[in-house]
């Protein structure tokens, strides 16, 4: 959804923003651009400052330093009610004394629109979110999924430049969450509003977002498309946070095409300058198991199968190497015979399978 080949200026530019609570930094010197019409995810472990960053965008928290620009203008002087952003709260924060319609119309009433226009836009939004016929209900007469959609309708009906979503799906059960993730994507495509979602669920971020910012301890670790972050993580931390990863430590050899490890020289690509320490990061699905040592070309490291787990679509295999390190290998269950625990196997992968990480 990030438009490529379009030199759009950033809708939101976050410049070196810091915020600390009682001396402990929650967001630390963070810079980030959010483009127009993109679905952007802030991903990170609990307590890394995602909500704090979102609340600074909404205006509920004031940065200690740094600036936030909207279309190139600093929005620091704008209080929350003057910002053309709307937020969907994690608790939904629906007004219990108002009906569904009253909740959705609330924001429009603050804009002094005509009665007809308000009614029209509310009806349109209720239809868009499949809430027709529920306008007269109170929030406590709705299911969790319906409440979530009312919260979304209430934020979207104001046609914000930016929709902020703080863990919008955390309260839904697994199946509903999966459905809603696709609905959110469809909604974003249809409305062409910029969505910024906060989540600590990497799968959710990968499914919904066009670009992801991975945060750790108030700092930005990496920004990129889901594929970039998964395939080319910039650090061991990112690689480990997004999915499972195997790491092999070694020294970069001459020409930057090998990594000297305890398992011998391993062929890699783009390892950088010779002599430095680096790690080869290999996803479990990029490794194949072989009973015999392959003749040439690919990397091969021997090991012993310690465990094998059947997960339905795939099987997960743990292999112990000579130095005691355990590698994870995942294999699609396509009928081929699986090795059994205790079997001696070779781990095989081509030079291009992994990425070499410097940090």
């Amino acid at each position: 959804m990030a438009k490529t080949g379009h030199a759009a200026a950033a809708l939101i530019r976050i410049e070196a923003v810091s915020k600390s609570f009682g001396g402990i930094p929650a967001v630390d010197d963070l810079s980030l651009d959010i483009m127009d019409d993109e679905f952007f995810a802030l991903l990170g472990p609990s307590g890394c400052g995602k909500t704090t960053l979102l609340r600074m965008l909404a205006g509920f928290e004031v940065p200690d330093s740094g600036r936030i620009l909207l279309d190139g203008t600093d929005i620091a002087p704008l209080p929350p009610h003057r910002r053309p952003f709307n937020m969907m709260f994690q608790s939904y924060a629906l007004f219990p004394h108002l009906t569904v319609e009253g909740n959705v119309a609330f924001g429009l009433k603050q804009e002094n629109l005509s009665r007809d226009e308000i009614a029209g836009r509310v009806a349109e939004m209720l239809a868009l979110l499949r809430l027709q016929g529920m306008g007269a209900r109170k929030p406590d007469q709705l299911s969790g999924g319906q409440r979530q959609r009312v919260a979304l309708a209430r934020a979207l009906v104001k046609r914000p430049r930016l929709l902020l979503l703080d863990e919008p799906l955390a309260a839904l059960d697994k199946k509903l969450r999966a459905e809603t993730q696709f609905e959110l994507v469809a909604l974003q495509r249809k409305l062409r509003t910029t969505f910024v979602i906060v989540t600590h669920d990497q799968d959710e971020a990968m499914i919904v977002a066009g670009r992801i910012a991975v945060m750790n301890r108030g700092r930005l670790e990496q920004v990129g498309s889901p594929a970039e972050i998964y395939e080319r993580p910039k650090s061991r931390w990112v690689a480990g946070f997004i999915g499972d990863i195997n790491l092999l430590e070694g020294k970069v050899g001459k020409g930057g095409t090998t990594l000297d490890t305890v398992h011998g020289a391993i062929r890699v690509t783009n390892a950088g300058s010779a002599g430095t320490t680096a790690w080869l990061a290999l996803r479990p699905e990029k490794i194949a198991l072989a009973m015999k040592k392959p003749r040439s070309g690919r990397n091969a490291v021997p090991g012993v199968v310690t465990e094998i787990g059947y997960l339905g679509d795939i099987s997960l295999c743990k292999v112990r190497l000579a130095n005691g390190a355990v590698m994870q290998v995942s294999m699609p269950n396509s009928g081929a015979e699986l090795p059994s625990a205790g079997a001696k196997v070779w781990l095989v992968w081509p030079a291009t399978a992994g990425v070499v990480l410097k940090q």
Partner: protein
Amino acid sequence: MLRGMSTFNVVAVAFGLAFLYLPILILVVYSFNHSQLVTVWGGWSLRWYRELLHDEAMLSSVWISLRVAALSATVATVLGTLAAAALTRFGRFRGRLLFSGMIYAPLVMPEVITGLALLLLFVALDADRGFWTVTIAHTTLTMCFVTIVVQSRLIGFDRSLEEAAWDLGCAPWKAFLVVTLPLIAPAVAAGWLLAFALSLDDLVIASFTSGPGATTLPLRIYSQVRLGVKPEINAICTILIAVVALATVALSLAAKRSALRGDPAAQG
């Protein structure tokens, strides 16, 4: 329910209720007594209620008391609600402990001292004692009660509701008016009613701060009783009891209705 109750429990409850309500019951019954003497039963009659209608002094005291109570309760509710909001909102501001301590002080302060202090203040300011001084004094007295009632409701209040209102385009003061206030309304109403009742029944502070033109009802009753109890007093007290009882019932009905609507405001 009843089956589980031992004789002891029944007696205890009956005794307790009698202790609370027998004096009031006697007062109500005697207000319908025809006899001139308070202690002699002379048959049912509305004589003292009729007589009350012609007692100019008593009626004017009722009027003064109602005005003082309504006005002071209203001002106390506004100030008390704002104080409660400040105490719960601004987390830990400098001097919060001192501020909340100062709010609660009048609760435990002997009324004689509050009354005396106010009297000294009014004398120092050279203010004529009368309607306004009693009203101000009662506002001082009742504000902290309102604060406590409203604060207990605000502590359980979900702040994100107010933030959602800001986010949707309300300035903070408006968010408080259109979102917070409707949700805490039962507590605010309860605070007002409490303030009204406290003002209506105050004797000590009124005796320090009121002047010749502004004899409140308790002051009037007290001064008349010293000359001997007239059955007319019973009548006016009965009316007061009826008013307070009706207001209490109305308030608890309103609270129950909003609880049935699933309004969390009534459950806090």
